């Protein structure tokens, strides 16, 4: 099994993925963002929270490439440190959503019957809610903090993954190798985690990559509305809040953090689509 996976990655996935130049570029930017998040303190010459009353709302200069904000803080430093928040939110929220969605989808698809009916109705119900309303309400009531944001975005984003996994499991369940596993006496748990789950993962990988982009957008919107990451911790969304307040005098406060969100989300989407195309058996020759 492991051998097969690895040889698939080398023989089919990678060559196909590499041909898609946009996807490779997206992947490269994602790696760059990782690097920025880890090494942000070494990149910047100004501390993101150091206030300077003499340099309030300065337009971009050689000293401050992205200008300064209403407290004289360096916007470049704040944007670079903001990458950390978006990375964290993206991965933790999507991790929660994928784990929850995978478990629900596995149970519903593998056992069927009333468990399936109940869980899929729950998915239907959750899909009816305007997700952003739900997130907004929970976070505002529970006092905003980065952990709550990540958990709530995860808890409201698992339904798509659950449906995907269930559909995969329904198809895999009928395969002969599952019958074989059952015949030699494997337990349900072993069959689910050893034989069904690994084969249902590829569409989940795509959904997760695109999900990171979605989670980053949601976090930035929440922070923009003032219910997300709280200042002085810089996040792209909350820099844009001051951007809105000073829009008549300081365009740089609005332009750069927005561009950062745009580029990040774009890269994750390109990467996700690239993975999808490379995995899609319909385009396999």
């Amino acid at each position, binding site marked *: 099994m492991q051998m097969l996976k690895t040889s698939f990655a080398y023989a089919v996935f990678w060559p196909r993925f590499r041909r898609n130049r946009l996807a490779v570029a997206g992947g490269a930017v994602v790696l760059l963002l990782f690097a920025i998040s880890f090494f942000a303190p070494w990149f910047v010459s100004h501390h993101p929270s150091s206030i300077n009353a003499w340099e309030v709302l300065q337009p971009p200069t050689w000293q401050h490439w992205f200008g300064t904000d209403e407290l004289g803080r360096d916007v470049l430093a704040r944007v670079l440190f903001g990458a950390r928040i978006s990375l964290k939110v993206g991965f933790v929220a999507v991790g929660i959503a994928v784990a929850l969605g995978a478990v629900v989808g596995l149970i519903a698809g593998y056992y069927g019957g009333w468990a399936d009916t109940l869980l899929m109705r729950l998915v239907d119900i959750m899909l009816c*809610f305007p997700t952003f309303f739900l997130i907004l309400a929970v976070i505002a009531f529970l006092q905003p903090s980065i952990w709550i944001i990540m958990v709530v975005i995860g808890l409201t984003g698992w339904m798509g993954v659950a449906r995907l996994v269930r559909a995969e499991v329904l198809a895999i369940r009928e395969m002969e190798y599952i019958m074989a596993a059952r015949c030699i006496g494997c337990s349900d748990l072993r069959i689910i985690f050893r034989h069904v789950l690994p084969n249902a993962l590829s569409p989940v990988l795509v959904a997760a990559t695109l999900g990171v982009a979605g989670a980053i957008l949601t976090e930035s*919107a929440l922070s923009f509305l003032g219910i997300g990451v709280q200042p002085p911790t810089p996040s792209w969304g909350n820099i844009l809040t001051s951007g*809105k307040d000073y829009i008549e005098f300081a365009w740089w406060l609005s332009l750069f953090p927005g561009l950062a969100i*745009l580029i990040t989300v*774009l890269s994750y*989407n390109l990467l996700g689509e690239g993975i999808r195309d490379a995995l899609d058996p319909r385009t396999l020759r």
Partner: protein
Amino acid sequence: MIAYLLRRIALLVPLLFGITLITFTVIHLAPGEPVEMQMAMNPKVGKEARERLQKFYGLDKPLHVQYITWLKQLSQLDFGRSFSSDNRPVLDKIKERLPVTLSLNIIALLIEFGLAIPIGVMAAVHRNTLLDKGITVVVFVGFAVPTFWLALLLMYFFGVKLNWLPISGLHTLGYESYSWFGRLWDLAKHLILPILVASFGSLAGVSRYMRSAMLQVIEQEYITTARAKGLSERLVIWKHALRNALLPLITLVGFSLPGLIGGSVIFETIFAIPGMGQLFYQGVMSRDYPVVMGILVIGAGLTLIGNLLADLSYALADPRIRQS
């Protein structure tokens, strides 16, 4: 068809029940009560008064009793009274906000589909040409633009820099004195930016969807047949292919409803438009539980009905589904 309709309507009941249960749970997860909020504002209120307030709102009873009371009220379309100082019925508050949000979103939806369908078809017909690639790039960028940022940029260019368009509210101060046409023009000017932002939101997604639906249809045999019998390419694409590719789009409209309603929080807060999203935001910020619960239930209920209508029209449009 009638059996299908009845089955779908019967399914609404457990779903609606689930919606109320989740709404109630979510709201009561939160520590801190609205009474505490009022107390914090006015520290002079004593313990007695606080209990009186709790009793008044029914917050002293156990949770399941509160839920059942609330459910009973809901079944009579009574959403309770707002906790805010005006103390008005929630339904009245929602009623005056809902038309604003709905009409904004419907106009945005029409513009969005009006643009996305031709864009998607063009990309599919000219597959893998420079045009298709150009459209794909634009679509991907469109996907990634945060709507609130777009709103900020538009406000900056059209409102601050060029000073062409107003950037907040629905009316100019003193618009009552304008003529009939003047008022309409004033309203239109206020709506241009919000509608632009609202429709841009899912333009990218819909056109992408349209492209892949169209690509699938073009490979079908009946399209080859249509071409073989000598129909013009224009007729083949815009009549034979498009009509079939449009079908799955009906479901997409149903699916995009919660996103549209949810997105209204963002642009209504930015442009100061008195709609549902703004009401919800204010309700959440002041812990006005009845308003928040009412909007959650109504928002989810509207989506439920929207999905049902979408499925029904799909069944009406596609005989294969009607008969199965």
